[in-house]
């Protein structure tokens, strides 16, 4: 497929178009409302599908080629390092370039370091479609979803702990009943998304190993519904994004810098993620396809807007949700699915020599 084809078929995929429709619905003040329980159900479905698929494919891959386990471990380590690195440097950028307060900078750090389930879902959709269209080639191993929690939890915990310390140094920390480190770790690890994902990964792996027939039948359901649910979920996210747009006003004079950073920074994190994968690909040949690197870019470049806001609201109440929410859902997410998906895909294909 040529580059124009990649761009067009990416931009006009139903999921992206539904996101645009969701934004438009709010802008034209349509009466359309997506029930909250439907949102939750779709989010749960997507996390379970990502986890089950990842766990099952990880077991399959390791059985077929035991050496892959080494690559999985190395990639997980890289994810941990990236989680810390992205969080720390996002905080710096937010403070120095955008001029946000200490609390807001570190809250954003958590968001940009953590993983966006919607972004990785779109990425997995693209990578597995590419693999399905070229079954003979090795494009996407499918186990990359198992890496999600490593970067996500690391980044959130890093941002919250360092943020709390920075606030304490400033003496501006909340004088209120403070939430302790144990509680923070708890909410970070047992929040809906990452918990369901981790458990689904384990279930997917166990079922694949011990009960492959049942496992495959259950996966059929999740794979069959994945694109449809993702499309409707993106409709919802589009509505959420548009609702946050107006809050951007609160940024005042910092708006332009914030918009720029929200669009560019995740592209950089995505490219760094790809480079890290490329190094591993060079050093451990045959372990990673371009689709794997691409999905890792959606992990690194994605900016959480469902889990992180919930965790930050609890752990860092001093930070203003009207800053981190619109930046993540109304600026970075659309930028990622439009620009990021295209740039990262082209870069991966290029590095792996398949244009």
């Amino acid at each position, binding site marked *: 497929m040529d580059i124009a084809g990649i761009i067009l078929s990416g931009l006009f995929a139903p999921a992206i178009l539904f996101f645009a429709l969701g934004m438009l619905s709010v802008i034209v003040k349509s009466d359309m409302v997506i029930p*909250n329980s439907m*949102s*939750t159900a779709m*989010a749960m479905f997507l996390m379970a599908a990502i986890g089950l698929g990842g766990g099952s494919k990880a077991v399959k891959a390791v059985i077929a080629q035991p050496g892959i386990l080494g690559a999985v471990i190395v990639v997980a380590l890289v994810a941990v390092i990236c989680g810390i690195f992205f969080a720390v440097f996002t905080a710096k950028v937010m403070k120095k370039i955008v001029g946000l307060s200490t609390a807001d900078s570190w809250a954003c750090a958590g968001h940009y370091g953590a993983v966006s389930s919607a972004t990785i879902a779109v990425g997995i959709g693209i990578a597995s479609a590419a693999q399905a269209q070229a079954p003979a080639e090795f494009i996407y191993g499918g186990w990359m979803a198992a890496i999600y929690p490593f970067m996500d939890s690391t980044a959130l915990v890093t941002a919250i702990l360092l943020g709390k310390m920075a606030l304490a140094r400033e003496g501006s920390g*909340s*004088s*209120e*009943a403070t*939430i302790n480190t144990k509680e923070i770790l708890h909410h970070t690890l047992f929040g809906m998304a990452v918990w369901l994902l981790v458990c689904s990964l384990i279930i997917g792996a166990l079922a694949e190993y011990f009960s492959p027939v049942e496992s495959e039948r259950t996966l059929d359901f999740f794979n069959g519904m994945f694109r449809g649910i993702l499309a409707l979920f993106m409709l*919802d996210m589009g509505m*959420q994004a548009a*609702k*946050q747009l107006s*809050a951007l006003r609160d940024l005042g004079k910092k708006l332009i810098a914030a918009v720029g950073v929200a669009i560019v920074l995740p592209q950089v994190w995505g490219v760094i993620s790809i480079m890290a994968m490329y190094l591993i690909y060079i050093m451990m040949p045959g372990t990673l396809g371009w689709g794997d690197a691409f999905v890792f870019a959606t992990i690194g470049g994605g900016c959480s*807007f*469902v889990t992180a*806001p*919930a965790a930050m*609201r*609890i752990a860092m*109440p*001093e930070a203003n*949700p*009207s800053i981190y*929410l619109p930046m993540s*859902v109304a600026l970075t997410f659309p930028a990622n699915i439009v620009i990021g998906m295209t740039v990262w895909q082209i870069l991966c294909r290029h590095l792996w020599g398949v244009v």
Partner: protein
Amino acid sequence: MNAHTNKMVVIITEFSIKDRVINTIEGLGVKAYTIESHLSGRGTRGIRDDNVLLGENIKISVITNIDIADKICAAVATQYLKHYAGIIYTLDVEMMHP
């Protein structure tokens, strides 16, 4: 019926601190309360929609005596309502049963 006049304390606040507020209230010896969820509203912290991202409002009602009522108001207001959206009000109710 022999009813007894009581205070009802009503707290409207963010869903995200539900468990912590309940803990605080129970810490004051309160063993009975009612929780309503999925409220939306507007206040000094802007519009709080019942949506998945920002989280909704909840309403915690406690029927109790005036002393505990005051303690609840003081504890919840000072511990949570600086950074979290929320209001507290009280009203007089007559408990008919039990």
